[in-house]
Each structure stands twice: as C-alpha cells, then as structure tokens.
C-alpha cells in the first residue's frame, strides 16, 4: 500500500522515545526538583551542602520503599493493586527479628526463608485474584489484615535482634553501599522486561481479554507478578529490620500507601500496562526526599502527612498536564 496522502510524517525516534516514556521522564524531572529542593533547604539550615552521611542515610531510608514500590509496580502493571504490601513488610520484619540470632550466616539463611515467605504471601494473593476471580483490592485488603495479624503473632511486642554484621551488609551506615542493591534491582528489572513473562505482564495490563486471545498466559503471569511483589515486599521488611537493628510488627504498615504513592509518582499507570520499575524507584526516592525536606523545613511532624498529600496531588496534576501537552504536540 502506498502511503496515504493524509498519513502523518513519521515521528522521529527521539519523538517516540519521549512520547512513550513520558511518565519516566516526568518522574526524573520531579526527582531532580526534589533533590534540588533538599539541597536548598539543607544548605540554608545547616550552612553547608549535604555530604556522605546525608547521602548514605537518604539511601538507607529510601531502600525499603524502593523494594516495596518495585514490588507494587509489578502488580499495578497488570492493572491490579496490592494493599497487602504493608502486611508482608511487617511479617518479614517480625520474622527477621525473632529468627536471625547473632551470626551473619544464620541471618542470610533466614533471609532466604523470609523472602520465600513473602513470595508465598504473594502466591496467596495471586491465586485468589487469578483463580478466585476476585478484585485485587478486595483480596489484598483482606490479606493485609491477615499478614499483619500473623506478624503480631510472630512478634507481639517490638524487640528481637538483628546481627550487626547483617545491618552493615544491607544498610551500611558509613557509605551508600545500599545503592548496589538498587543497581542489581534495575538490572534484574531490565532482564525481566526482556523475558516472555515481562512482555506478558505488560500485555495483560494493556488488555486482558485481548492478551488471552493472543495466547498470553494470563493466570500464570498474574500469579508470578504477585509472587515477585510479595518477595520484594519481604525484602523491604528485611531492609527495615536491618536499619532498625530490631523488629517491630507495625512499622511496615505505612508501606502499603507509600508504595502506591511511589508508583504513581514514578509514572506507572494505575490502569495497567504503562510504566516501569525505574519509575517506581524514582518515585520511592521522591517520597523519601519530600520527608527529608519537610524535616529540615521544621514542619511539625504531625502535619507531615498533610504536606505529603498536597504534594502528591500537585505532582500528579502537573505531571498529567505536562505529559498531555507533550503528547499533543507530537
């Protein structure tokens, strides 16, 4: 067929790349702004630029959310949502505190077990969603309570202990070594994106019925997404326990909402099929930096969530407007 006279000129490669990654680009822009805002507030307050200590503590503060948000993005990409993330973080945190003991070897062994427990929690979600044909929001709302309950059962009062060597390995307080884990996470994501399951995940989020007609393994892929999500949420719990050097079966609760916030800020569409883990990671850092900025601005901690909410709305509205304008111009 000859080109239709009305056919638009082809977009340039760059144009397509921008148009199709607009969410990620915007997340990067917001992250840049958040970093700049933090540098400004910090240097005004402390009369110097933040150094290694601030970088390390920011990374270590962010890393549980990074893992939880990446986990959340797997499920959101299938057009689902996982409210049980907080429960899994709690459960992993509690299990770590009561099992790890004193030796690093034992702690690592238990880490593997706890990650498997997280994946099992995800498996339950996935089976209920895929085979039970239940709405993800209902399933994970229920399992959130169940996993939180299990966590309290494991660790009724804050306590337990994490071996210091484990803390140094995961969230070294002296240097931002934890960035290595984020690098590994991005590599793993890049490989996943280029696997059969990765393609299927996006296809399902685009259109589940069409995907089924095209031979995509819908049930299997959904279950895998929830399992990866569960394992990553458990990893978030391990980082959290390592940071606190002890366990608390309730500190993870907030990760349900913050992981969703991070995913949204990172440009992952809640309607599925669009976005990436890189965006979720950016979203996690933005969320963490906002907390830092509020802290150094001496905002009353009681009002912190108020400002976080305002910021989320402003970011999403502005992001949507800018993204829409750019797409229209193309």
């Amino acid at each position, binding site marked *: *067929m*000859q*080109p*239709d*006279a*009305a*056919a638009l000129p*082809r*977009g340039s*490669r760059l144009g*397509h790349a921008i*148009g*199709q990654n607009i969410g990620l680009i915007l997340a990067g822009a917001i992250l840049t702004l958040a970093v700049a805002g933090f540098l400004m507030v910090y240097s005004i307050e402390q009369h110097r630029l933040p150094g290694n200590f601030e970088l390390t503590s920011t990374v270590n503060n962010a890393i549980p959310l990074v893992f939880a948000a990446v986990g959340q993005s797997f499920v959101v990409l299938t057009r689902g949502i996982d409210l049980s993330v907080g429960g899994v973080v709690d459960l992993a945190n509690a299990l770590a505190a009561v099992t790890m003991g004193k030796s690093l070897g034992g702690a690592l062994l238990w880490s593997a077990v706890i990650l498997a427990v997280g994946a099992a929690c995800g498996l339950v979600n996935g089976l209920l969603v895929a085979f039970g044909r239940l709405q993800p929001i209902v399933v994970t709302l229920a399992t959130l309570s169940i996993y939180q309950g299990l966590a309290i059962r494991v660790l009724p009062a804050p306590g337990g202990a994490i071996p210091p060597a484990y803390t140094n390995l995961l969230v070294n307080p002296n240097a931002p070594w934890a960035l290595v884990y984020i690098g590994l996470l991005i590599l793993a994501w890049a*490989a996943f*994106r*280029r*696997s*059969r399951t*990765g*393609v299927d995940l*996006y*296809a399902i989020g*685009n*259109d589940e*019925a*069409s*995907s089924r*007609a*095209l*031979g*995509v393994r819908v049930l299997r892929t959904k279950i895998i997404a929830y399992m990866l999500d569960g394992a990553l949420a458990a990893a978030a719990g391990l980082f959290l326990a390592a940071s606190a050097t002890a366990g608390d079966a309730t500190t993870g609760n907030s990760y349900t909402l913050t992981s969703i916030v991070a995913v949204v800020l990172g440009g992952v*569409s809640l309607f599925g*099929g*669009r976005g990436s883990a890189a965006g979720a990671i950016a979203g996690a850092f933005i969320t963490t930096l906002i907390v830092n900025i509020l802290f150094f601005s001496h905002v009353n901690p009681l009002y912190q969530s108020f400002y976080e909410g305002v910021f989320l709305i402003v970011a999403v509205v502005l992001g949507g407007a800018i993204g829409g304008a750019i797409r229209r111009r193309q």
Partner: protein
Amino acid sequence: MTAPAIAARGVSKSFGGVKALTRASIAVARGSVHALVGENGAGKSTLIKILGGRIAADEGSVETGGPDLRIGTVFQELTLLPYMTVAENLLLGREPRGRLGLIDRAAMPRIAEAELAGLGITHIDPRALAADISLAERQIIEIARVIMARPQILLLDEATSALVEREVAWLFGQIRALRDAGVAIVFTSHRWGEITSIADEITIFRNGTDVGTFTSIGEDEAITLMTGQALETIFPARGAQPPGPVLLSLRGARAEGTAPLDLDLRAGEILGIGGLAGHGHRALFFGLFGAPGFREGRIEREGRPVRITAPWDAIRAGLALVPEDRKSEGLFLPLSVRDNFTLPILRRLSRLGILRLGAERATVAESIRRLAVRTPSAQQPVGALSGGNQQKVLLGRWLLTRSRILLLYDVTRGVDVATKHEIYELIAGLAREGYAILFYSSDAEELAHLCHRVKVMRRGAFVAELPADALSAEAIVAAAMRESGKTEIPHAA
C-alpha cells in the same frame, strides 16, 4: 472433491439462554475463499470463533483437513494492545532473542518494518504506539500480524469494517496470494461488493444456521435469504422536499488538522460529508460537538452565534452526535435500554425530583417502537443488543432530548444490511420531520443514495460539493482522490 481444509458439522452454541448457532455447517476447501454472509446476530462471528478454537461448540464438530494445521483469526474486535508499539504487537510471542536469551528490544522495530514491507505496508511506523495510529491502520496491523504467522487456515471476521477502498484492495491482494498458495480462507463482510469480488463460495446465514451455499448469487436473492423477506430497495427514496431555514452555519471554523471550514445546514436536509478516512471528518464532527471544540471561527445557530467548547454546550444548542464507536463514545453498555434512553431527560420525567416511573415507561416504550429497537425488554442491558440496535438506542436518546441537529458519524459501520435499511429509513424520516442531519459515512454508496448533497473533504478542507443530481459513489470517490499535479488512483479497479 478433496477433503476440506476445515469444516464445521452441525455446530450449535448458546450464550446464556440465547441460541447463537443451531446446527450450522460449512466446509472450506484448500485454496479457496469462503464468505459467510448474514445479518448481525446470524451467528457468523460465533462460527468463526468456534472454527478458530476460541470457544467450544455445545454440539457438533469441527474437523480440519490434517493434524496441526495453523489457524489464524482476525477478530471483529481488535486485539491490539494499545500502549505497546506496533512492533511489539506484531512480534508478540515471537520476539527476537539476543544475548542471554533476552528479548532484543532494539531490533524489534527494524524486524517489524521489514516484515510489514514484505506485505506491502510502508506507511505505518512500527515505533508508534498502537493507540496512536488510526483505526484503519490498527485493523491493517491486526491483519498483518495474523498473516505473518503463516496460517494454513485464515479466518477474517469483519476485517474490512474500518478500511477504505485502497486498503481493502491491499487486503484482497493478500487474500488472493494466500489462496493461490493453498490457504483456506473464511471471510465475513457486510459489504456486498467485497464479497462478490473475492469469494469463491458464499454461505448465507440466517438465525444461527446456514441456509444455502452458492458459488454465485445475486444481491437481491442473498438479501432475501438473509432476512427471510425481500427488501424492495436498501435505500429509501430521497425526499425532494424544499429545504427549510438554515439551522447551523460554520464560518471559518478550524479544528485541529482542518482548514477553516464553511457550511450551512438546513432543516429537513441530509448533508453528506464524504472523503477518505483521516481527512478531517472526525475533527469536524467532534469540533461541532465540542469534543474538543473548534480552535477558531464561528458557529451560528439559526443566525445567532453560539460558543461550543464542550459537549454540554453542543447539547444545549440542540446538537446531537452519534459516533461510530458507540461503545466508548455514547452508550452505557451495562445499563438497560431504558436507562440509556432516559438518562439525559430524567429531569423532564421527574416531578419534585422524583422520577415518574409511568411516564418513563411510556417514553421508553414509544422510543423502542419508533426506532424499531429489537430488544427482549426495556430492562435488557444495551451491551447485549446487536450493533445496529445499539446505534438506534443512541439515536433515540438524542431524539428524546429534542435536539434538532443530528451529527451522524459513520453510524452504520459494522451494521447488518437489514438494520442498515431501518436506520436509513429512520434518517430519511427524521429529515422529512425537519431535522437537520450532517451525515458522514465511509461508505460512498450510502452517501450517494441517502444525502441531498455531499461535501467532500480532503486534507481537512472541503474540496467539492456534489448536488443531488450529480451524486454517485464514483463521483464522491473521484472527488476525494483528486489532487492537482499528482494522480492518486487506487490501484484496484
């Protein structure tokens, strides 16, 4: 005769309590094109899904001429994934692998481009998102994807519904090449000209079963078999009533992608808008309806300027839009026929904020009767009706809102012949009653027979106006194609 490549024998299928197929049979030989013809709801799509293995028959059997024959199906509902690129869609499930067995995403556009070029498609960018290309282009990609899988049996369900002539010619070229290579092809279409030009055999369906298979059959006879009754003519007589006052004028109205447009639409007139898909018709219709509004220029309603920046403005000005994509741009599919009719006029049917159920029931019954909506009851969800009947409900809703200006945008696309006939009668009747009707259709035949005059759009501008005595499908197509200094004739006759 050699064993057929694929055959259905005595196949029945019910959905809920509705019988879609009753002991239907067809047999398709290798290297032949077999057309299934029938009204919407006659069971063609169901049979295609059963042949393709998408759904299982309740009784009867499907036999193929050999084990492991590859069957490719182009479904009526497009299955492209909107936020994946054309290349990702084309290569889904057979992505190129690079290092470590990982998918080589960088190579995909190149491969897709080469494969598309092999099928003679060079105008669709494999890097574009499926959501960003036109409906016709999506349909072409859908077809290309299935052909690329090298099927030995190819099932095409309404694969031409969004295509213009040139694109249909491309598809038929592909079909002929596949047929000559021994592929068995099953094909459904509502366009009779297409069917006779490509089909080796025609099986006619009525009420869920096959009522005859022919190697050649005239259209009248086919329609009689399809509907069980003779249709005198498909198109109603064009009313020659004197045009009424001008109800709507455009002066220099420019939408995104169009030139400034002028037109006058009179009461009692069906003004056709013709031309090839993608030349600004949609921008004109949706501009009039404020979705989004025009960027510049004036709209006058009976000589008074009106501002239309949102559909709400258009509705208040007495304009009504019936779009082609009724599912996403007009109807509430899960709601009942009744609710779909009365949602915009609930206030009128209420007293002191309380809905008068009797008045509502009477209004809905009257609308169902007037529009001849075929529905078991007013409580039926609109999504369960056939496409043509959905279209009638949408049209009927606007008639209830007392809109006087109807913008009908390709309303008969994918609608069966008998329902098309009813819609034509309805439109002609509305014009006689004094409605002003702006009518776009991708079917030039329809424009030529139904409209009092036709304005042809090309590249976002009106390039010709054909009065009633100069109207023919050929004249419309010629005007749409003509361009000074550059011949652009479709390469199929």
